[in-house]
């Protein structure tokens, strides 16, 4: 069982990385483009409000980041701390990032 979990986590880590790579680039490019006319809440909300594209993109971004970060955190905790139950901590981290991130996405769309 343990072996299958590790392999699933390996697959999830790679898959989330594949999703994150283009999204991070798109996010950075958008930021550079957005600040050209001065950065303001109104300007950002004007782009994201009611936009299925930006809402969906950031919802996916957060899903991938929460999975990717949590799996990495689990490895760090297991190797660098004597903590037992690193998986539980990582799972809680994943859920927290998902909840906070999706809440933020809901607020700007």
């Amino acid at each position, binding site marked *: 069982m343990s072996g299958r979990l*590790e*392999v699933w986590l390996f*697959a999830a880590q790679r898959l989330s990385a594949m999703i994150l790579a283009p999204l991070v680039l798109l996010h950075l490019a958008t930021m550079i483009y957005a600040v050209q006319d001065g950065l303001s809440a109104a300007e950002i909300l004007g782009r994201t409000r009611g936009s299925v594209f930006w809402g969906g993109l950031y919802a996916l971004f957060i899903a991938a980041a929460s999975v990717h970060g949590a799996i990495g955190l689990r490895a760090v905790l297991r190797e660098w701390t004597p903590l037992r139950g690193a998986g539980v901590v990582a799972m809680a981290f994943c859920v927290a990032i998902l909840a906070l991130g999706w809440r933020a996405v809901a607020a700007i769309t």
Partner: protein
Amino acid sequence: MSAMDEAAKTLQVDIWRGGAQGAFQSFTVPHEVSQTVLDVVTYVQRRLDPTLSYRFSCRVGMCGTCAMMVNGRPRWTCRTHVDRIADDGRIAIAPLRNFPVIKDLAVDMTAFFDKWRDAGARFQPRDGAADSFANVDPNSPARRAASDAIECIGCGICHAACDVVSWNPDYLGPAALNRVWTLVNDERDADPAAHLAPVAGDAGCHACHSQQGCAVHCPNSLSPTASIAGLKRQTLAALFRGQL
């Protein structure tokens, strides 16, 4: 002869003495042409202090018994020339990292080889003694993958170089996993896919960070990292096939 010439002809050698608790002891050893680190240790043991404990056998880079930390790096001492690694005439020689020290430069390899057993790194023949020789195509992808990893002499240098081993004592380690990779690619093995389950656990191939300390230090220029990456791919394929 000037003092400088004299200094050039000697080496200052610091050698670890004791067990896990111990200290470096300094020796002055004559510098010879084509001298190896093993020559230096042997000189100390035979001429200066017969109580020095160390391990060696073949002296020609085949047996894998003489690995030690030399100036902080794991090396096969019989094939490491002093001229290549001496730091201003100084050499520090210590027992292999990540291994329990028995005494001085001799380490306990038991746990290391137990991991080979735990990883299932044992060839299980498909054919019996009565069967004829297996014809293995030397150019098949599997045979090529096995060939790239097969020349391991079991010296433990990769195990000493691996930070994941130092963080997680249960980690099977680059040597055992590299050996399993050769078996996964051995068409003579009774069940190559069966070798994947023992290395798919949380102390197996997925614990590797692909840092490549093993590949940098392997005296035979193998890349256990590449073998472990192969195991990661194969375990994923086995999972999707329902074989894990």
